Structures are given as C-alpha cells and as structure tokens.
C-alpha cells in the first residue's frame, strides 16, 4: 500500500514537473503575448495541480492536505482573473494580436505568419 502510494505520488510529481516545463517552454517559444498566455495557463492549471496532488498523496489525510487544497483552489480562482486583467490591459494598450485567421472573414491568409 505504501509502495503504491509512493509510485502514484512520484508519477504525479513528475507529470506536474513535465507539464510545468512544457508550459514554460511555451512561454519562451510562442510568438506573441496572447499566445504566451496559453503557455502560462498550462503552468497554472496542470503543473500546479499535479504537483500539489502528488504532495497531497504524500501527506495523507492531515491538515497539510487541507492547506494544499486551499492553495490549489486559490490559484485556480485567481489565475484566470489575473490573465484576464492582463489581456484587457494588452488590448487597451493597442497591441495587435498575431492572427492566423482574419476575424471578419474566416479565410486563412497563409500559414507563414505564425511560424516564427
């Protein structure tokens, strides 16, 4: 039983680390600020969620688990709010998002613009 829990929590921690790394690679690689928000979203949901899930499995049914759950809930509630505030600020500042498809007509205007 102990071994199963250890393996499970090891898998969660490694999976969370992998997702967090992927998200950060996305933040570095993606071409403009709007697309980078999606990379940040991976870190904020899957990375944080899986790592804390792994820690919860390690802690067992204690007060520590409750606190970890509180932190997860808090991050899940605040991260979209912060992202939304940032997106509004970017749009207000007049930054044009890099688009593949024109919002008015749905014809793709060449795929070269996104491959940076």
């Amino acid at each position, binding site marked *: 039983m102990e071994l199963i829990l250890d393996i499970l929590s090891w898998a969660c921690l490694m999976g969370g680390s992998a*997702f967090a790394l*992927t*998200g950060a*690679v*996305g933040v570095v*690689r*993606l*071409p*403009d600020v*709007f*697309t980078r*928000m*999606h*990379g940040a*979203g*991976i870190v904020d*949901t*899957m990375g944080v969620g899986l790592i804390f899930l792994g820690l919860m499995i390690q802690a067992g049914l204690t*007060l520590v688990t*409750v*606190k970890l759950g*509180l932190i997860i809930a808090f991050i*899940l*509630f605040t*991260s*979209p*709010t912060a*992202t*939304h505030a940032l*997106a*509004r600020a970017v*749009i207000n500042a007049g930054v044009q*998002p*890099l*688009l*593949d*498809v024109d*919002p008015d007509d749905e014809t*793709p205007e060449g*795929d070269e613009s*996104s*491959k940076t």
Partner: protein
Amino acid sequence: MVHSVSLGLVMFVLWLLLSGHYTAFVMGLGVASVVLVVVVARRMDVIDHEGHPIHLSWRSIRYWPWLIREIVKANWDVAKVIVQARMPISPSILCVEGTQKSELGNVIYANSITLTPGTVTISLEDGEFLVHALTAEAAAGIASGEMDLRVTDMENAKAGEDDPK
C-alpha cells in the same frame, strides 16, 4: 444577513484550520477578526449573491469534475502543440455569446474559458465574449458552446431549487 453569517462561518472555519492552536485566547482573536472583517465588508457593501455566491455551491459540485476533465484534455492538446518543433498554431479571435442571465454566470463562464489552456477571454461586455484561441481545435471547442450550456445549466438549476422553499 444570511450571506454575512455564512461568510463569517466560512472565515472562522478557515481560521481554525490555519491557526492550529485551539486555546481560548487565539480563538477569541479569531472571532474578533471575523467580526471586524464582516463589519467592514458590510460597510463596503460587497456581501451579496455575487461576492459570496452560496446559492451556487451545491450545483457547482456537478460542474467542477466536468471542468477538470476539460482542463486536462485541453492541457494535453496545448502541450502537444508546444513541444512540436514547428509549433502548428493558428491563433484566432472569435466572438461568442453567453446565454447566462446574470453577470455572475457570465463571469463563471469567462473564467472557465480562461482556465482551459488554449483559450483566453479578452473582454466581456453585455454577455459578449471575445475569446483568443491558440489552435483551430480550441476555437471549435468554444464555438460548439457545450461549456456555455453547462454554465447556464448550473446557474438556472438554482432557481428551480429555490422555488419550493
């Protein structure tokens, strides 16, 4: 009034969980802090169905597991896109209509969209959402409107629940 009492109870439970000391003095400090915060919040007039939505708490239990499953799926898709060498992204902005009646429902929908990687809500005005999508699949997922239906469902269910009482 119900909201104030409920907010106070939630905050006191939080105090008990986080302090870990169950002596009369520390718990007295907790009661004093809770009363102070509730009084200040009432003066600021922020305790209402929006600031402290107790009427949604039971309904949201059905919504959360579905949302988590969607988040996991979307994470997997976006992660696959990012790790590919050529990054096959096709960013687009689309406009969708929310069918929720209250502003709280709109906010829940907007936050759910943003929480799902691959889609970010840029602006929200009068039930019109401007959504930035990373890939065509993510855009199609929002355009299909399933999340919108589920949020509206959760919002409306409370009316049916409140009526018999």
